[in-house]
């Protein structure tokens, strides 16, 4: 049997935020919310877990630092310790100031790019991906809340959502 979801459309982000609070208090399950722009505080209201993207970025930065140190230690000190303009290539530490710009840039490069790629992978974004938008107006000026109606009385739920300020309510059969 196909499960049902209700799409409640709101006109205003303040109304949406209040509605989210009420829906959560009434212990209905919010599947997804589509908004045209970031609504400040929506993640807190929905009770979403904080992102760990910053932690991954730190770790990627450490990887970049290690890569740059290893690379220059091998190339400049171990493989061919040439005298280039009198720079002391006897050990990594002695010639380190000259390597710092590269160490810095590679740290930033790894931290930034790998974090962005992580973001794309985690949010499943790529070129030619088919958009998952339930209603085109949510990219312009409408806010859409998707509520599970699996084993619930659909009439009660839509009544409730109507009272929270929804301007449109649609019942959708999930395939």
């Amino acid at each position, binding site marked *: 049997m196909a499960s049902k979801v209700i799409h409640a459309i709101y006109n205003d982000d303040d109304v949406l935020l209040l509605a989210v609070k009420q829906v959560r208090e009434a212990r209905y399950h919010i599947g997804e919310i589509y908004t045209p722009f970031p609504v400040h505080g929506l993640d807190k209201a929905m009770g979403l877990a904080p992102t760990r993207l910053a932690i991954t970025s730190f770790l990627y930065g450490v990887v970049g630092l290690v890569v740059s140190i290893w690379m220059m230690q091998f190339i400049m000190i171990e493989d061919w310790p040439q005298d280039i303009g*009198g720079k002391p290539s006897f050990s990594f530490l002695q010639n380190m100031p000259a390597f*710092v710009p590269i160490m810095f840039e590679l740290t930033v490069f790894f931290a930034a790019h790998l974090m962005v790629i992580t973001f794309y992978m985690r949010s499943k974004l790529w070129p030619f991906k088919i958009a998952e938008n339930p209603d085109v107006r949510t990219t312009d000026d409408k806010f859409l809340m998707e509520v599970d109606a699996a084993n619930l009385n659909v009439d009660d739920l839509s009544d409730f959502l109507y009272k929270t300020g929804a301007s449109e309510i649609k019942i959708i059969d999930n395939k």
Partner: protein
Amino acid sequence: MYTLSSKLKLTAIIFVIVGAIGLVIGFLQAPSDLDDVREMLAAEEHHAEPAESTLVEADFAKAEHDMLLEDEAATHGEEGAASHDDEHLEHTLHQLQNKPWAAVYVAAFFFFMISLGVLAFYAVQYAAQAGWSPVLFRVMEAITAYLVPGGIILFVLLVLSGMHMNHLFIWMDPEVVENDAIIRNKSSYLNVPFFLIRAAIYLGGWFIFRHFLVRNSRRLDEATDNYYFKKNFKLAAGFLVFFIVSESMMSWDWIMSLDPHWFSTLFGWYVFASLFVSGITVIALISIYLKSRGYLPFVNDSHIHDLAKFMFGMSIFWTYLWFSQFMLIWYSNIPEEVVYFISRIENYSLPFFGMVALNFIFPLLMLMNSDYKRVNWFVVLTGIVILVGHYVNVFVMIMPATVGESWFIGLPEISAVLLFAGLFIFVVFNALSKAPLLAKRNPFIKESEHFHY
């Protein structure tokens, strides 16, 4: 209203007294003539130091001497070993005589630069019309109260140097200037009267701007319109223009001219970064202290978070300038510039590289996490480390030129810090009790009270 607790007052007074006694002892212990130095060095040799190391030290001192006084170096060979010995002793005598003076100078400048940094930060907040910081304005105003006594003490120290009470600034010594073409060519800028006039202009300018900024802020409390706020906005913008010019010249005069053979173009910024981050750190520490005593109920974790972000960012900014200055000189390795870093790496390697750990690596790792910036004891711990690091920074800027290889963080250094710390605490907390801790009619005060990050 804040009332100065008797405990704090007593602590400050004890600091001042203990520091003053220690300093007097430090001045008395300084050798007065060559015989004293000979005895001191002999006693040192007796103690534990192997003869070899003193030999190396003497050689290095001689090499440095040769470098500094090129003209005299030519006559060295003729005079023989006996005069070498005497010259070395005289060199050491000057260093040891400078030691207590330099200790006072470092501590006096360190605490002065904190209040100057806070004044700059305060003016930035006004000029940028920041919405988060007005609840902290009274704390900042109180810290800048130290500007006047601290500045006067510094000025007196500079006058004493000009009167040849010490040998901190070698370009003030006519004998040195006579034999040194490089300094002689700079004497149109580096001469005592002009030096003191410049110092008076910087200090006078800062005092005046500080006076009017604080007065307008107090008057705004009683006002019925935003007249004084607008006035302060313009005043702060004007101050920042004056400040960046005068601060840059102040750093050439008061610090860079200790090494009159050396110059660096980003030195003013480097000193600025140091005083700015120390100032912000002290704002955070005093705010957290007052908050813990219940005097700042309107300051929340988000304000501390913002201050910690500034501490973090400015620590990295300081490191950026420190490294840029060091790396450019290290890379090109031009002898006339690189002696500055050679003397620091040879004789001051622990403080010179240790301060990078204290001022960069420690705050970088401690304050990177957003949650940690809201934990007060974390911010306090990092703040103390940053302050110690920037004291060492000032120490490494001033000491190599004044006491050279005879440095040690001993009685005079610690006493001087205690003396000025006591004075700083007394002046700042006394100023805190002079006005309500919440600025009343600032147009951004509501936003600031509800500031949430």
